[in-house]
């Protein structure tokens, strides 16, 4: 082999997310994992991934789609397993980040108690939820992250209940840092991962993760979908420090939320006007703007 080929192979091998992984086309994880790798600037993390698409990403033994050490935990256990890893690493002087990479099922539902407890203990972990608002790995069932009205394989007439406000729940734990991530806003994404890396204690990052299979959307529209979710105000980009200080990163523009929902067949039972979607966005921003005004992360100059 030529030196060039060897160097290229090494790059492919050393990447956090290697070529040949099993992610679907248009999956938000593919962008999220690569940007996270980039944000860490060559520093390699230990990762704990529970049962979710993120562990299928690795592919079958003995190969792995990940270029970093991974512990594949049971569904509800990622923060508990990561607690063990982080404590022992610290006792041994290893300061590399320990990252939980989990889906919404493992975060909003089955892993909620474990996550809450690790946050309460303020374990030195970065917890990233790639939220595709569905049990994607099992064929697209509802989770408590599924928005109201969305069709899933267990809500064929549209989900009757709304989505949990996970950021508020984590802010309620008074953790040092919580932020939302968009795969359409690269600089914002990288900065937040770096902020998380430079902060110690429990850090929570919530990424809205497009899932063409579950969302019934086109893979090549994934990034634009997330952009319209952010710009319409449906998925706000913001940060919460110590659970009490807020910073909004992007104000919505005049992008209608229909841009977002009309490109996903999971939203066929929902229309922007006929439902409470616009009212929900309005209420969400009323709350967020109120918090950011009353409890700003940045003091006015």
């Amino acid at each position, binding site marked *: 082999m030529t030196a060039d080929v060897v160097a290229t192979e090494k790059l492919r091998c050393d990447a956090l997310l290697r070529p040949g992984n099993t992610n679907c086309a248009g999956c938000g994880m593919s962008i999220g994992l690569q940007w996270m790798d980039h944000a860490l600037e060559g520093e*390699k993390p*230990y990762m*704990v991934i529970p049962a979710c698409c993120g*562990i*299928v990403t*690795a*592919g*079958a*033994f*003995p190969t*792995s789609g*990940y*270029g*970093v*050490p*991974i*512990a*594949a*935990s*049971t569904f*509800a*256990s990622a*923060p*508990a*397993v*990561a*607690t*063990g*890893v*982080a*404590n*022992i*690493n610290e*006792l*041994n002087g290893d300061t*590399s980040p320990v990252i939980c990479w989990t889906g919404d099922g493992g975060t909003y539902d089955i892993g909620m*108690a*474990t996550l*809450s*407890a690790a946050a*309460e*203990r303020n374990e030195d972990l970065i917890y990233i939820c790639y939220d595709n608002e569905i049990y994607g790995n099992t064929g697209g069932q509802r989770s408590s992250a599924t928005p109201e009205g969305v069709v899933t394989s267990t809500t064929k007439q549209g989900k009757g209940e709304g989505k949990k406000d996970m950021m508020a729940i984590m802010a309620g734990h008074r953790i040092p840092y919580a932020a939302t991530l968009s795969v359409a806003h690269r600089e914002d994404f990288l900065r937040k991962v770096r902020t998380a890396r430079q902060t110690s204690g429990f850090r929570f990052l919530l990424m809205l993760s497009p899932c063409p299979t579950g969302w019934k959307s086109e893979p090549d529209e994934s990034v634009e979908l997330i952009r319209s979710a952010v710009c319409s105000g449906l998925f706000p980009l913001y940060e919460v420090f110590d659970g009490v200080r807020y910073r909004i990163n992007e104000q919505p523009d005049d992008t209608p939320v229909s841009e977002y929902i009309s490109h996903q067949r999971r939203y066929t039972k929902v229309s922007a006007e006929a439902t409470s979607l616009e009212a929900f966005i309005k209420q969400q921003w009323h709350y967020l703007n109120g918090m950011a005004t009353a409890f700003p992360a940045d003091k006015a100059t």
Partner: protein
Amino acid sequence: MARALVTGNHAAGHTLAACGEANREARGCCCGAYPITPQSEIIEFLRDYEFTKGRTIPVESEHSAMGVCIGASVAGARSFTASSSNGLAYMTENIFAAGFYRLPIVLIAVNRTLGPPWNIWVDQGDSLALRDAAWLQFYAESHQELVDTILLAFRISEDERILLPTIVAQDGFVTSHTQMVVDLPEQELVDRYLPHCHIPHRLSLEHPTTIGGLTWPRETEHHRREIQTAMEQVPAVLGEAIDEFEKVFGRRPHGMLSAEHTEDAETVLIACNTMARTLRNVVAERRERGERVGMVKPKMFRPFPRAELAAALSGAKRVGVLDRNHSPGSGGIFWQEIAASLQGRSDVLVQDYLVGLGGGDVTPQVIHEIIDDLNTRKEAVEPIWKEVAA
């Protein structure tokens, strides 16, 4: 050796702490801790202990307690915890995970009845329900045996030929909350006895791997067969661990089982944990009367010492199994294993007695009645419910 009058739970806590501390020059130690009656004093003891390089982490559930142990273990630490009853049931998913990950975690099971209905007293059904989880299982009849078996457990579990976790069980309250004089191991001796914990497949930045990812049927079958192969090596590794134990501590613990007066016995009773202690006295009394009665105490339940048990029972005509557990739709769990060990023997009667369930007091009188019943039997019947006094 420091002789002390302590409870079973104190003895377990002290020994776990000493074993954890013994790994201070390697990757340290960790305990994921969550309380449940009757084991809570163990995790309280560990929480108070000041490790040179180790932590006891209080979590929100047994499931996470084992999760923390798994994480610490994949990071290379010596890891341990304790639980009981419904706590073990709640922990079960991660108990299986620890076994299948091949992590040498040690778990003290303080046996307690599974609920509902709620009952805090002893019954071995909680840990026996974990028999298929790829863990070694030992049952300790006394405080001293508990201490010694914990020391053996780390040594065997962490042996590179084994790399499987171990449950060491003791009776709730009867052992856990009563006091006996025990030789508690001094740190210096534990340091000598236990090599540093080395987990060859621990997470590494230099050689990144995915531990516990996906496998196809063929690899899964290999994985299970490797576990079986490791289990088959336990008797030899246990033998070495006992020899070394004797050199360091000057005492020789029981092995897989102890067969007592079985050489000439026509009637043999089988029991574990504190029932075995009561049985020993009854057997002694019967032998004074000239009766050919013996006993076997299976200390090791996984791997099950089939060949050794069959050898111990080679001359027996009647075998009575005392099962303080119940597998609904079948019977006693020890009985199932013992009957399987004696397959092909038409000259022996194996009778199961379900006795002392839910913590019923198995007195010498109860055991005398069982022996009398067994001696009159011409053939075995379905497991017999032997009620004890209220």
